[in-house]
């Protein structure tokens, strides 16, 4: 059935059953493959997108729940968002597969907290697994992006 979604500032018509998780609609229907499949049960964070600015796990969110909700994916950040710039500056990614999700969680954190403490970062980022273990650089890049945004 046709569903209307607002993704990255555009209204997108997709053909999907109502119980289809947003992740598969983004990837298979909308052609936005930046958000990744990692676990399908909201445990790893690789599929994280923003729903009205809040971080959500798109693998566990049926499209039927998203009428009128503004979805932002990694592609919607524009490529030069301060968080993305910090990621590039510190060479955060290794395999890179989890990084779209990490970045979306970091963007949501900084949007609500311009100067997060280490505990704030831990709390915001613990839902995002990185098996390459880039955690230390993720934390440093969040602090870097926060500093750049305040400057």
């Amino acid at each position, binding site marked *: 059935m046709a569903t209307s979604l607002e993704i990255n500032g555009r209204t997108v018509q997709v053909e*999907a*059953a109502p119980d*289809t*998780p947003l992740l*598969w609609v983004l*990837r*298979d*229907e909308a*052609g*936005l*493959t*930046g*958000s*990744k*499949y*990692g*676990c*399908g*049960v909201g*445990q*790893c964070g*690789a599929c994280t997108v923003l729903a009205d600015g809040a971080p959500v796990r798109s693998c566990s969110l049926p499209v039927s729940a998203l009428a009128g909700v503004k979805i932002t*994916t*990694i*592609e919607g*950040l524009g*490529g030069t968002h301060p968080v*993305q710039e910090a*990621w*590039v500056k*510190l*060479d*955060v*990614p*290794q*395999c*890179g*597969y*989890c*990084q*779209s999700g990490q*970045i979306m969680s970091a963007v949501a954190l900084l949007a609500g907290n311009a100067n997060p403490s280490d505990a704030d*970062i*831990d*709390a915001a*980022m*613990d839902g*995002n*697994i*990185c*098996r*390459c*273990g*880039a*955690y*230390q*650089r*993720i*934390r*440093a890049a969040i602090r870097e992006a926060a500093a750049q945004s305040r400057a």
Partner: protein
Amino acid sequence: MNAHVDTDAARTGATRRELVVGTALVSGALLVGCSPADLLAAGAKTEVGAFGPFIRIAADGAVTVFNKHIEFGQGTHAGLAAIVAEELDADWSRVSVEQAPANAKLYANTLMGVQGTGGSTAIPNSWMQLRKAGAAARAMFTGAAAAAWKVPEAEITVKDGVVSHAASGKSAGFGELLQGASTITPPAEPKLKSHADFTLIGTDRVRRKDSRAKSTGEARYTQDVKMEGLLTAVVAHAPRFGAKVSGFDDAEARKVSGVVDVIQIPTGVAVVARSTWAALQGRNALKVTWDESKAEPLGSAEIEAKYAGWAAGKGALPEKLKWETFETRGDASGGEGEVFEATYDFPFLAHATMEPMNCVAQVGGKGGVKLTVASQSPTLDQMNTARIAMTLPGSVQIENLFAGGSFGRRANFQSDFVAECVHIAKKVGKGTPVKLVWTREDDMAAGYFRPLTHHRLRVRLDKDGFPAAWTHRVVTQSLMKGSPMAPKGIDSSTVEGAMGSPYFKATPAVDGQVLMPELGVPVLWWRSVGATHTAFVMEHTIDQLARKAGKDPVAYRLALFEKAGASRHIAVLKLAAEKSGWDKPAPAGVTRGVAVHESFGSVVAQVAEVRIVDGVPKVGRVVSAIDCGTAISPDQIAAQVEGGTCYGLSATLHDEMIIKAGAVERRNFDAYPVLRNSEAPTVETYILPSTNPPSGVGEPGTPVIGPAVANAVLAATGKATFRLPMIRA
């Protein structure tokens, strides 16, 4: 970040030594069962330009380096390109990297004989090959300039992609000289730079080339492949290792909108659909019955108990299974003195890459057989694909993509997930692209685990508290048995790290034996392979012996390393001890643990600072020192030590695969906890200056953190750790 090249000249005395490759992943011997001509002939069609198979230079002077290895996070794409750029004197900002196609003739790993990545060899095997390629291309430009400008070639210099002749004031970019250079015959043995002349290698300018693509969602992984007419397949797999399909009812599955076919393949029943969600829904509706008569009957608990019994000499060994010696010296039995005894147990471990295994295959079309996949061993994948698709291995094209992690998982002798995809694509036929998607549960349940392993030790001590006789038993599955490259003697990957240990060298009598039982649980190399357990056993035992002897753990190790002549171990241990402030008191509530281990030709020492919080270790600062020979990219070496430490710490604290009656119990991250951000330490990495050839970096950072943390816990609580993980879910 946090990469420091230690400039203290006094420490550069580490002895030069031959590169030791811990586990050769595959070797030329693998070509048995496939004639070299079949493998190479068709693949030789790869177009090679004037500058050889690794370098392309565009009309505007931009340089492209072809990466024969997979890029799965380890950053070799940049390291390899930097080696070329250094000898070519290219403008690093105008160097980009492309994945090389599958072609064993052009792109074999020089330490393996076939194309593949493993054993932390990507940089070491390419070092001389790419230096020569870069230097030869440079000579072609200087030759072309000398001819064009009619000046002596010896007076020509090259810097940042600009060729100059100072006396005449002439200069030109690579682009301007391209045509002339292309006609010059490259020298067979071009002159290479000396280390002192390096301007790029070893500097912080060598940074990743893929960070932006990986920070914008643009980087292309197998999961992201889009093609005209692409179908997605998921497979209903056996519930237990060794079970087979006995029948299935696909009536309901075929009713799911978007499902186009249901196909039986050797590993299960595949549902093929127009989208991932439709395929998953189709699989949910599928009814499969399984023949479990040949399924693995044991679970991990029974296996662990069996291994412990065998190591203790209890219970009869199965027929044909016997202890094999991996290290022996003197008579380790009898004798007088205090005796230390311990057993250590390590569970099965999943690699748990962030991107579950997947593959895109096309079979039966006009374009021949093609894989679009993150291929860790293109040659193995070509051979296994060819057997199924009934073609010659060399004709199988592979477009190699970024991998969302591997840690060893993507290279196995069966090409398990690739082969599964090829079976489906063959049935679908007509060259239709089929993307096989494994869910996390499929990935976790497929096995290929780090083998469950048991160690039993008896160490008799001399009057000074040093080992006088060391008896060591290891029980673990072989990684090589039954493979085309099964060794005639023992499988060294099961005991590497214990075998050849400097502690054994320093001990007058050693009796090391390994027992390698066969099980229905598929096992595989897991980042740092044998060292995942041997480093823990050796380093945690040594700390317990040091404490027994009333000696400082660093001083105790140094004494043994002196006896063994392990100069590189001494150098990194001293560096880590100094940088960590080992001789100064730790902050309140913190204890320190130290460990040193050599793997893949590199030696790493770490000092971990640990706080016990609610009964569990919380690791804060980790100071690392690494001797990895010539450092190409200090920042990426630091990244690998940081990441390797997290991977090892995850296994130390959490990772444990539970199997019950041959069925994998833990199939997703809710049941299989792994290290998360709040538990990750802050790692400082100090690189020992060296002009030795580069040795491994991707794996050696992994095995050291476990014993360092266990030793810190020992210091805090007096309790040793005899089983991993420390925190059992």
